[in-house]
């Protein structure tokens, strides 16, 4: 029985990759996302120049071999700043999505497995949370606790909790009614084991897809907060902060305002393409629809 399951799982995986290499959106999105991740990881150990050291003598210098993307008004290397900015964005995205899945996932599962008061509370709480856009929540939190990366991550992450709670609840409800789960319940498998071994693998796909979308939204929200001066604080560079500083120099150094924006847009585009691709590849209904003749 377990051999058959293993063969089925291997077939599924090879089928996924066979379809994946023919999906241009998934490939482009995956390549962009992977590149950003690698750049972010590289920035942790190496950048061409230190980003906190000012070099006024070389301020606003044009692109050259020494500084491939030029320098800013403090003489800092733009390429190095963009690399560190990538690391900052990836960190914010990871923690914010992790917070969303880590708290929202179990809440959603619990509300699907224990309908009634918990389920109703999760639904109403998520209804309520949708009234507080991430940016507004972040503004409120930073008004009290001051600006900073951690506070902005918490604010963005809090907004992700109801998103994942609602999604997990929605997809878990149908899995909870499946025969194999009913069978596991009937033979007395503990609820935690049912959740981890039988339900989680079957609800992972939509959660992964949503995670890429929320990751992209978190990067946008963090960039917005940093642009306002409420997110990442100097001297740590961030794409949003770089855009804010560049706005005052639009007349004589427009590239300073263009490059960080391109980084944000390309990263978000990559994550969105990856999310769309994963949804196409992981959702059997969409796979079937793709095979149908177009109307």
């Amino acid at each position, binding site marked *: 029985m377990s051999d058959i399951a293993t063969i089925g799982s291997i077939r599924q995986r090879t089928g996924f990759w066979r379809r994946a290499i023919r999906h241009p959106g998934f490939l482009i999105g995956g390549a962009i996302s992977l590149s950003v991740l690698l750049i972010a990881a590289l920035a942790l150990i190496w950048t061409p120049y230190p980003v906190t050291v000012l070099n006024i003598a070389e301020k606003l210098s044009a692109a050259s071999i020494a500084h491939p993307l030029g320098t800013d008004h403090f003489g800092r290397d733009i390429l190095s700043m963009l690399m560190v900015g990538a690391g900052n964005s990836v960190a914010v995205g990871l923690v914010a999505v992790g917070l969303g899945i880590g708290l929202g996932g179990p809440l959603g599962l619990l509300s699907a497995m224990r309908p009634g008061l918990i389920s109703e509370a999760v*639904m*109403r709480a998520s*209804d*309520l949370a*949708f*009234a*507080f*856009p*991430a*940016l*507004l929540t972040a*503004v*409120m*939190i*930073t*008004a*009290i*606790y001051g600006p900073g990366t951690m506070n902005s991550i918490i604010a963005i992450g809090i907004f992700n909790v109801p998103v994942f709670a609602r999604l997990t609840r929605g997809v878990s409800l149908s899995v909870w009614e499946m025969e194999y789960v009913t069978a596991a319940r009937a033979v007395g498998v503990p609820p935690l084991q049912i959740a981890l071994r039988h339900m989680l693998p079957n609800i992972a796909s939509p959660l992964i897809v949503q995670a890429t979308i929320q990751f*992209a939204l978190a990067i*946008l929200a963090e*960039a*917005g907060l940093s*642009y*306002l001066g*409420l997110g990442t604080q100097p001297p740590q560079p961030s794409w949003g902060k770089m*855009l804010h500083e*560049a*706005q005052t120099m*639009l*007349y004589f150094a*427009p590239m300073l*305002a*263009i490059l*960080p*924006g391109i980084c*944000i*847009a*390309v990263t*978000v*585009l990559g994550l*969105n*393409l990856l999310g769309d691709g994963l949804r196409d590849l992981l959702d059997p209904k969409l796979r079937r629809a793709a095979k149908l003749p*177009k*109307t």
Partner: protein
Amino acid sequence: MLEFTVRRLTALAATLVVAAMIVFLVMEVLPGDPAEVMLGLNAQPDTLAALRAQMGLDRPAPERFVSWILAFLSGDLGISYTYDVPVSELIGERMVVTLPLALMAILISTLIALPSGVLSAMFRGRPADTIIMGIAQLGVAVPNFWFAILLILLFAVTLGWTSAGGFPGFEDGILPALGSLLLPAIALALPQAAILARVTRSSVIDVLGEDYIRTARAKGLPGGTVIWRHAVRNALAAPLTIMGLQFSFLLAGTVIIENVFYLPGLGRLMFQAIAQRDLIVVKDIVVLLVAIVITVNFIVDILYAWADPRLRQGGGNV
């Protein structure tokens, strides 16, 4: 329908109260002493005492909450600590900028998104569809404040057609005032239009597969009539819901866009209030924005149920 409306109204009132409670908790209870937050650690004791008295901090939190809500409902939003004028007056002045901006953004977004979404659905799988959806994909990825900076770079810096920001006010005429809101509204509308176009496309594609569309085509109705009279009308429910949800993002977006263009709107007021630690103003604006979002979603719920009777039975809880 009446029963559904009453049910939703009750839920609306409950959500509003709980939302106000959360804002009150975060802004007035969790920080410990909000007066100290506002004035900083080096504040003089008598200044602190005066502010505590103005904010009524000597009273228990539940009592403060109830009196704040009652005052809020009667239009008394307190006195701004920084500006020393009633907050309602400040909000009223700034609403004159934010409201037209938000409405223009919704209008622009709808005017771009609905025709593009329908066209994309009509030409599904063809180059027009690929191009429109490609642009939409890009539109979702571009942050609105960066797009705003690019618009300034093009129209103010390079072409010199308009100023890089500011608002002349309505005293010199409506057109110059609305003209100064045009670029901000476009910047605000773009990501919303991209999302709305994608939703409209998929909704129209769903409807185009329905039997009654096939029947309309079979009886020889012209393609345009089938699309615009039968398909689009029935496909509008999903885009309408998304527009309701987008309203909250749009309001939040004004906080950034008003700062990019230095517009004296509600978003910029909130930003300035944060910088000045004027919690009285921040609290009132947050509650007001949240109340607007909840109310707009309620109106969308009602419109949706009016258009689709099946939702009235389930209470609209999807």
